[in-house]
């Protein structure tokens, strides 16, 4: 009991943290724990982009940016602690990079009037902005991923998947279970046979799953994995001599970390993406001059140009553009979280805008609206070349099965609305 009192003294000091006169983009990162290999490059990319904006443009609209970090370790309890402590610093938008933490923060951020951006993860039906007013998941979501993979396979097979067998190897958590419903519907629509193969956290042991795959002999394997599970799966696939070009990972299973461990055996492995790969974009020259050469690179500075670094960079770019939009709408430079939400809802990314930012063709162009918080779900496919150790885009950003996904989203968001007594409306 006495320990509790001392703890309060500690907490009192914490509560007195200064209010920053910056645009605050908190980074809920994980540089430790079982998923650190994925968390580090994302956090580095996110931080470096804002550092570059500060050095090159003097912030956004004349206001400097700040990126306070908080280590979640991909753990929901620490995520709660991080959210509460970062909230005191006046964060504009939260990007938890964890589906579990996202589920927790959806109601909390809505109650606190702070937007959350879950880019390519989180709750898919948050695309329906009338129900999920403060959650955004543009430019693509898990169900777009599932449909994008099937569309790609359809194109490869001349539009016919009848009688094919497709297995889904997934992380047995909220994240991995997301695409099951979509794939089940798609299998009924296109006539392929769908098999689920769950892998428990953290996924270091997958012998039995791949034995099952060897026995079932699916034509294609789709993977929704994260962290060490990806490496192990690719290694196991190589061990049973599963053809790599028939193995497609979602965007969270398609980084350098996942394929490098398997060496040459990973050659030809494919992964979905919603943004460009490689460092062949003008913006990287600016990052080199203003961030790396100035000695301000986040982390070890060795991640630049990797897939997940680019994703962090892309998330930062979208957040910065949304902040600009919010500044235009409200006519103030020092926006607050509520105004940031309006900016995100009015965000429009065009080809010209991306080219002006030094990121030509980096991602799809899309427009966010109140009804659509998820963009247009354009999904591309990348392939790993083990000899040059590079990912390359082999199929350009293409549309997904909008009709089917929108139906599922309407159904799931309606269920959420009725559970939580939300009347769908535009804010």
């Amino acid at each position, binding site marked *: 009991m006495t320990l509790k009192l001392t703890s*309060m003294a500690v*907490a009192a000091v914490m509560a007195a943290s200064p209010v920053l006169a910056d645009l605050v983009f908190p980074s809920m990162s994980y540089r430790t724990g079982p998923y650190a290999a994925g968390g580090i490059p994302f956090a580095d990319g996110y931080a470096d982009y804002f550092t570059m904006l500060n050095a090159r443009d003097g912030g956004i609209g004349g206001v400097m940016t700040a990126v306070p970090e908080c*280590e979640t*370790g991909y753990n*929901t309890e620490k995520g709660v602690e991080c959210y509460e402590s970062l909230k*005191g610093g006046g964060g504009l938008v939260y990007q938890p990079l964890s589906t579990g933490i996202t589920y*927790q923060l959806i109601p909390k951020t809505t109650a606190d009037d702070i937007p959350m951006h879950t880019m390519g993860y989180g709750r898919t039906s948050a695309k329906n902005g009338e129900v999920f007013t403060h959650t955004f998941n543009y430019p693509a979501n898990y169900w777009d991923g599932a449909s994008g993979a099937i569309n790609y396979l359809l194109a490869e097979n001349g539009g016919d998947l009848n009688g094919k067998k497709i297995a889904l190897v997934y992380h047995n958590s909220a994240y991995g279970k997301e695409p099951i419903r979509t794939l089940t519907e798609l299998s009924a629509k296109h006539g392929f046979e769908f098999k689920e193969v769950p892998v428990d956290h953290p996924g270091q042991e997958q012998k039995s799953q791949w034995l099952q795959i060897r026995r079932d002999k699916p034509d294609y394997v789709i993977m929704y994995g994260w962290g060490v599970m990806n490496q192990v799966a690719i290694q196991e696939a190589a061990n049973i001599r599963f053809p790599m070009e028939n193995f497609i990972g979602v965007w969270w299973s398609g980084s350098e970390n996942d394929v490098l461990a398997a060496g040459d055996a990973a050659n030809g492995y494919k992964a979905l993406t919603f943004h460009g790969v490689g460092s062949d974009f003008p913006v990287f020259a600016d990052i080199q001059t203003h961030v790396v050469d100035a000695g301000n690179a986040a982390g070890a500075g060795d991640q630049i140009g990797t897939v997940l670094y680019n994703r962090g960079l892309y998330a930062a770019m979208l957040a910065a553009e949304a902040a600009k939009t919010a500044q235009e709408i409200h006519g103030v430079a020092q926006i607050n979280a509520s105004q940031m939400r309006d900016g995100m809802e009015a965000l429009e990314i065009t080809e010209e805008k991306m080219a002006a930012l030094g990121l030509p063709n980096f991602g799809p162009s899309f427009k966010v609206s109140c009804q659509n918080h998820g963009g247009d779900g354009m999904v591309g496919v990348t392939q790993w070349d083990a000899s040059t150790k590079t990912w390359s885009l082999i199929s350009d950003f293409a549309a997904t099965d909008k009709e089917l996904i929108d139906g599922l989203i309407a159904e799931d968001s309606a269920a959420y609305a009725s559970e939580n007594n939300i009347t769908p409306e535009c804010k």
Partner: protein
Amino acid sequence: MFYREAGDFSTTYAEDQQTFPIKFDRYRYYLVLFIAIFVVPFALNDYWVNSLLLPFLIYAIAALGLNILVGYCGQVSLGTGGFMAVGAYSCYKFMTGVDIWWGGELLFRLPEFNIFFSVIMGGVMTALVGVLFGLPSLRIKGFYLAVATLAAQFFLVWLFNRVSWFYNYSASGQISAPERDLFGILITGPSTTPWATYLFCLFFTIVSAYVARNLTRGASGRKWMAIRDMDIAAEIIGVNPLRAKLTAFMVSSFFIGISGALFFSVYLGAVEVGEAFGIQKSFLVLFMIIIGGLGSIFGSFAGAAFLVLLPVALKVVGVDWFGWPTDIVAHLNLVVVGFLIIVFLIAEPHGINQLWRVAKEKLRLWPFPH
């Protein structure tokens, strides 16, 4: 000087047998209760409650429960995470209305329970499950029992991941606590006020500690301790091992279930069984009681405080004061906590509770130690 029983006369047996026989100690206890109930709720914000107080109170209940089983009855258990999951999922089912199916048809649906009774039902269901998994303890002991409870841990987590009935068939397999109130005051959901959730958990913590304290110093507690100290001798003097062990499992699981229910509904609001109630949770609570002190009520609180508050305090010092990189602090945290655990186990194998007891002894003699 302090803690002096001189001049402190007991004139009835009840006075002599109370939990805090020394007047100074008793008043300190009342003062702590007074501050916790009447002062703290007025000086709270979201950060204090959600980051420090709720996890502390909830883990304290879990530690109390496990301490009854391990510390008082001597039955090693590694199933705490699984039992907390039972509490959480029962609470969820009762607060959303339990639906019973037979042959693909909905037989009937219980009305939705109030959040208070949902939490209690979380405890009751866990007590039943605990008794079930306690049965092997009649035949196996020590490490072998630990392995049997480990099986419970993995089985329960697998069950809640596998059977979609437990999470009401949601697509993601997560359970989310809907908004619920008690006397019109919101207890769960995003719009709760800090003081309401704090007092709700504090109520359960105080009642649990009170019940645990009085059970452990009564007949049943003495039976548990007899079993712990030497089960054959206990059996010879007339303690029924079946009853003693199973009641220990039942009471312990009840508290752990309550803490699991609060953990899910009030503290986190949404959980995923593998992530929230994995084997790490079992170890965490076990470390709490080992560090706090086996077989002591105060030790359960001290251990929970140590393992909940220390990481936060280290983070505040490292990141907010010194501005070190977050990953360094996170790694440092592991090092420091691990180091302190070793220091505690070497310097004071009986835990923080023993330190507290020694400090009290010293204070009694102060300022004239002999």
